[in-house]
């Protein structure tokens, strides 16, 4: 069965000078946690055929990150871009992505990174699945498609493995589903130069506005968002140095005791 996978990606801010994440082409890049998700989708495509769509919500600069996924091998790229979206929180982002996914349907699997390297909430993947009302698994390391013939009809499910802390879980999940991909599970492929050339000559990223996905303007942006970032503050962590004294054996014991108190080492 050939699959349609949709990978949701974000163009993240690499450095936020005074705590304000202003996006320019020079300081934006494809979220590093999204790369394994793109890789997972591409490997599924190689195994099963089908196609991969990359989807992103954000300002115009997001088309650069989308083109990068095309250079990796993604078939189609869609940017949801509308001035009214500025200031949207993760809930609005999830609703908008869900609306765009519905427009891009039918689909079999939606893939996300576990988090983003700039705002780092980890909320958009699970929230989008909730808005769409489809099953969700987080931290997925392995995805297999299982097909069976029932009454002459082909149907199937996903078999997935995910990692949470020190545990691995195996799940059977119905089509269609949404997942976040474990950051170390799928090493992203190196991007071929010809892929970059083809993705840009000419740039082929579809742009959808709010009207295209049927989301009312008053439900997005700052006014549509139940949460907002009031202020960003850079934290400075004070470092202390404590010298241990005594015989090596005693120093090791003191160090272990200290690490246990800190909760760094299990007792």
């Amino acid at each position, binding site marked *: 069965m050939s699959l349609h996978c949709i990978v949701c990606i974000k163009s993240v801010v690499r450095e936020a000078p005074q705590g304000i994440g202003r996006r320019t082409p020079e300081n934006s*890049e494809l979220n590093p946690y999204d790369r394994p998700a793109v890789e997972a989708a591409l490997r599924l495509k190689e195994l099963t055929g089908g196609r991969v769509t990359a989807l992103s919500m954000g300002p115009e600069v997001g088309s650069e990150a989308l083109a990068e996924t095309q250079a990796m091998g993604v078939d189609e790229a869609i940017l949801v871009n509308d001035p009214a979206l500025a200031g949207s929180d993760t809930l609005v982002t999830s609703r908008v992505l869900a609306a765009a996914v519905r427009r891009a349907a039918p689909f079999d699997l939606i893939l996300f990174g576990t988090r983003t390297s700039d705002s780092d909430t980890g909320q958009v993947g699970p929230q989008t699945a909730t808005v769409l009302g489809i099953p969700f698994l987080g931290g997925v390391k392995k995805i297999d498609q299982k097909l069976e013939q029932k009454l002459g009809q082909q149907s199937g499910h996903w078999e997935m493995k995910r990692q949470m802390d020190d545990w691995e879980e195996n799940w059977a999940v119905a089509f269609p589903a949404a997942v976040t991909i474990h950051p170390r599970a799928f090493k992203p492929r190196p991007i071929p130069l010809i892929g970059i050339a083809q993705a840009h000559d000419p740039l082929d990223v579809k742009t959808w506005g709010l009207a295209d996905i049927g989301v009312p303007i008053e439900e997005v942006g700052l006014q549509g968002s139940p949460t907002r970032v009031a202020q960003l503050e850079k934290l400075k962590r004070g470092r202390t140095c404590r010298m241990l004294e005594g015989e090596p054996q005693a120093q090791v014991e003191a160090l272990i005791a200290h690490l246990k108190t800190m909760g760094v080492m299990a007792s």
Partner: protein
Amino acid sequence: MNEPFINAKHRVLRRTVRAFCLEELGPIAAEIDQEARFPWEVVEKMGPLGYFGIQAPKELGGAGLDAMSYAIIIEEVSRVSGSIGLCLSVHNSVALYPILAFGTAEQHQRWVPDLASGRRIGAFCLTEPNVGSDASAISATALPAEDHWLVNANKVFVTNGGIADVCLIFARTDPQAGRRGISVVVAERGIKGFVVGDLEDLCGMRANPVSSIRLYDCRVPKENLLGRLGQGLAIGLAALDTGRIGIAAQALGIAQAALDEAIRYANQRQQFGVPLARHQAIQMMIADMATQVDAARMMVYRAAMLKDQGAPVSRAAAQAKLFASEAACLVTDLAVQIHGGYGYSKAYAVERYYRDARVTRIYEGTSEVHRMVIAREVLG
């Protein structure tokens, strides 16, 4: 800072090449320099990714990119390993480019797909023991015989020489015709009489297998003549015009690497109770280095932009090569100075940058030859 000259494609390329080189070449760059070892394990990965056919057309297996992309790729590779930047620059610009520009359709089909994919490596064989800047004085010969050229040549300092499969040999096809008697024939490694000499033990760029290539009564097929009879010097000059952008980009990458290391070290090393970066003497050096690197980058990118526009590029490319190579020597020298005794030790990368930078003022036209080219253009 918003950069002029470059677009979204170039930004993606820069990030992609940087990430690839840091991962693949970064951990071995010092080792391959010290052991003078060509890293096939990485080169074999670079081939399928398109690094050996950057500007070659897609139909012939290349990446089909522009000159600006080429400059950025060479800059980023050289930032991690000058030797591999050199390998790519020579392969792409003075071996593959002349075949594309002067070769017949049949020659394109025969050589370009293998060269563009890195399955075969190219070399440019002009320099001889007694001939450097004065290319018209070469003594190699390719004399017409029945169905072949009988080639005798002693070519030295051939970049990629130890691994090259497809060699552009500059030789006299008509010894009586002076400058107009020089042509280019393509000799493939493995033919009878084709000898690869010992690898040179060089000061820098040590991971590149620079060697001599000697041809003793080699029978090179007639159809391996590149361009027209007597067009050799014109082909050489055209190749070097393109090559200059590559060498300038290479010098720029090395200079940038040295600046990065100097900044890191100046912020970390403490003397007189404060980081080096707080001392005005060091600040002056860093300011000069950053300015040189910035100016070099603007000149290199401008030359690449002109090339992409199809505008005359000789002067801009010569100025970029002259300036960037001189800047690389200055910047790497200051980086060593900022590192003090450690900078003179192999424990730090700056001594490698210092050695690698030096030859950029010598090869593909010395600084002095470039000043001649520039003066000719300026004075008319």
